[in-house]
């Protein structure tokens, strides 16, 4: 630990760290575009210039290593005017089309222009134009006019995802970000660049024009698509902005998924599968209880399930690796002594999907296998054991593999198969309840409820009390 002074305040800095890092850690804001804590230092945007030890030449705070007793000024008149000049240059050919830009409201160029920019632009030249809708992939569109060439996205693909698919080509004011080869930007982590781009240059095609970000709010959740269990934010409409007449489905729409920083588990990134979590969750739901394909009331369905269980001589359950720790606990207390317990992987890697890599993605495509195995061991169902009633928990199960047993199915999604379960009880998804999962390393991660559950859908943990 060494002491440095920033704006007359003495702060503690770690040896070897930069002025910018020390300042941010101590809650002092120094504007920065190109600096990102997970990427190498580029030092190209120049908005972080500060005065060091009174020297006339300003230094970029992101590249200035701290030294004992260093004196840093972030608000000196020269610093302010250099910043204003940099903002003037940034805005020079920036289209400023915030009105039709999805980034507006969470855009750093917008934010800094208000905070640090000059009152009036001094340029009277026509703006230089660049390509506006640039196809990068089916997921991402690039607006070269809005790009401020901070190179964050380029460094991300070189240093984090290692696909090196993006680069800056040409030079001078003609420079622009581009795919470096003909194929689309199909990096399995590509969508992370949407979040690190400080401006509206890289945009999600899926989210495009769906909502202004200030109508939305993030809710902490966990990605259920693999055993890494990354922390994510699910973006829902703010209560205050609920649509009250037409288009009420907007109130229960998850608009987008973004990574939520969690140094223990996923750092600041998630994979594209995680970015699609809301689409995974939006598959056709099982909305009402059914018996042999006919809609019934919740009471009728539970009564029938109870009847089946009471009359069973050899009942069994197949647990879901998508169940939360709390649900597993409820099951253990209320039902497990009466049934034979089996486990399974609800989801297996799909065709074409990245099975496993050394960044985040795990081969086990379920979020809570760890707890299932820790509490109940690992035992695959076998039809040969002659069970007469089987409770299936979770989706993606093939009824024909269950032999002649009567089937009680607890599922969130409508099963797409010929045969029908004897009793089907719809249960809530991770978006509709809160709880915890343990990821493949046994690290517990919490998710909060994003939406209310539909009326006829029940929480699995409540069901166990009634069965």
């Amino acid at each position, binding site marked *: 630990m060494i002491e440095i002074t920033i704006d007359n305040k003495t702060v503690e800095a770690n040896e070897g760290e930069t002025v910018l890092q020390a300042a941010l850690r101590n809650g002092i804001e120094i504007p920065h575009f190109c600096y990102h804590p997970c990427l190498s*230092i580029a*030092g190209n945007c120049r908005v972080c210039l500060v005065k060091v030890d009174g020297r006339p030449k300003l230094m970029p705070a992101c590249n200035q290593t701290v030294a004992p007793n260093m004196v840093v000024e972030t608000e000196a008149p020269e610093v302010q005017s250099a910043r204003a*000049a940099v903002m003037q240059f*940034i805005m020079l050919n920036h289209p400023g089309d915030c009105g039709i830009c999805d980034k507006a409201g969470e855009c750093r160029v917008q934010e800094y222009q208000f905070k640090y920019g000059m009152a009036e632009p001094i340029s009277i030249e026509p703006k230089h134009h660049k390509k506006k809708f640039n196809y990068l992939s089916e997921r991402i569109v690039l607006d070269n006019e809005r790009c401020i060439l901070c190179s964050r996205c380029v460094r991300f693909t070189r240093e984090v995802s290692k696909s090196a698919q993006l680069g800056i080509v040409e030079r001078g004011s003609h420079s622009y970000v581009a795919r470096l080869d003909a194929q689309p930007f199909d990096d399995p982590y590509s969508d992370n660049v949407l979040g690190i781009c400080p401006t509206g240059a890289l945009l999600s095609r899926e989210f495009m024009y769906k909502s202004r970000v200030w109508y939305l709010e993030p809710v902490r959740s966990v990605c259920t698509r693999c055993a890494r269990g990354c922390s994510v934010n699910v973006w829902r409409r703010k209560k205050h902005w609920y649509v009250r007449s037409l288009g009420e489905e907007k109130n229960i729409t998850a608009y987008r998924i973004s990574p939520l920083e969690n140094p223990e588990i996923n750092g600041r990134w998630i994979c594209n599968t995680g970015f699609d979590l809301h689409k995974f969750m939006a598959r056709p739901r099982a909305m009402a209880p059914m018996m042999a394909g006919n809609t019934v009331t919740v009471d009728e369905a539970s009564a029938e399930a109870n009847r089946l269980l009471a009359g069973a001589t050899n009942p069994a359950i197949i647990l879901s690796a998508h169940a939360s720790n709390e649900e597993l606990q409820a099951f253990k207390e209320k039902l497990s002594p009466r049934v034979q317990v089996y486990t399974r992987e609800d989801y297996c890697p799909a065709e074409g999907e990245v099975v496993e890599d050394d960044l985040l993605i795990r081969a086990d495509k379920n979020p809570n296998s760890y707890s299932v195995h820790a509490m109940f061991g690992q035992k695959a169902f076998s039809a040969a054991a002659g069970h007469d009633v089987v409770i299936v928990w979770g989706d993606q199960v093939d009824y024909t593999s269950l032999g002649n047993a009567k089937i009680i199915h607890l599922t969130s999604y409508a099963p797409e198969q010929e045969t029908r379960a004897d009793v089907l009880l719809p249960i809530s998804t991770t978006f509709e309840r809160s709880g915890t999962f343990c990821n493949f390393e046994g690290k517990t991660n919490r998710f909060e409820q994003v939406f209310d559950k539909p009326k006829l859908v029940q929480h699995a943990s409540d069901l166990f009390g009634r069965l």
Partner: protein
Amino acid sequence: MTETRVFFNFDVTADSHTLAAYRQRGGYQALEKVLKGMQPIDVENEVKASGLRGRGGAGFPTGMKWSFVNKQSPVIYLCCNADEGEPGTFKDRWIFENTSHQLIEGMIIASYALKVRHSFIYIRGEFDLPYRRLMEALKEAKEAGLVGEKILGTEFSCDIIVHQGGGAYVCGEESSLLTSIEGFKGYPKNKPPFPAVKGLYQKPTVINNVETLATIPWILANGGATYAAIGTEKCSGTKLFGVSGHVNRPGLFEKPMGYSYKKLIYEDCGGILGGKELKAVIPGGSSTPVLLPSEIETLTMDAEAVQAAGSMLGSGGVIVIAEGTCMVRLLQVLSRFYAHESCGQCTPCREGSAWMNDIITRISRGKGVKGDLERLECITKGIMGNTVCALGDAASMPVNGFLKKFRHEFEYFIEHGRSMYDGRLEI
């Protein structure tokens, strides 16, 4: 008194560039003397004693630059900066074409002093004959055991690797030169770390200009003190000055530091074309601030004097401008160059250089408006000192210089929509 010459000490003939010719005029004797009788530190001290300053533009003392390198480091690199891109500068090309061996000898001596096993030459991509001459010379030198394994039978080995540039002025900036050799886009790097600490492939690296390195053999042959005696006290030795523009005999001249600009222009170059009046001089390559005739009246060609006059000795490319030249259009040519050559990495230079070019071009098309000049000054203020490398400054200094010295021409152009000097300059 016959002047001492480090470069112009032989007659250029059809084969004066060959190894045999170079040997005949005493070539590679300094190398022999160094490898067989001196310690690396002695060489460094000799260079320090000579007072030699970098000829690439910044004028940093060469011996001191060498001393910054930690000689205990297992790998050290030497890079010769032969990108020669500054408009008005054409001295390195002459060295390659006529006496490549002198550079090679200088590089091997420097490599010995710096404990370098592999040294590099980054040569401007547009150079054709210079490149061919260099490769011929390297081949001769290798065959003669002057480069490569066990040079001159001693334990010292050093290879020279030649890298051709891709035609970017910015790759003459030392850190982007290294990035370019490493195979990346030639983006300059933020300093610190300085190349002397972390340079090529993250190893300590010394970067010197061609002329700087080609001077080394002479210094070792004749002694640092002898060299220091030439020129002025703080700026020793001779230097190659390339004179271009409106003079009767443009060309390359070797002059001791402290020589008079007036003598150079009026005697050596035979005065201004067509007997016209002198209007202005750009003293050291296009990025150095322009000087008026009154300012060069007594001005001498050494770093301190030129700096005191508000400009820089730079690379020694003297551009002479005759009366009747339109300074607005001249500045437009310069600003277009810098806008074109900005690497585009950092915001102020990328946007600012193009913006200045837009404004100056607009003025030169008769579309200037009131406030343009203040706008330009505001832009240069926003660029200077705020960029990654010195190209931002190089793009701004001419603008400031021209606006300061020839503001009335710009004002006239804006007010009347046309140049004070219509038509082509009649010579």
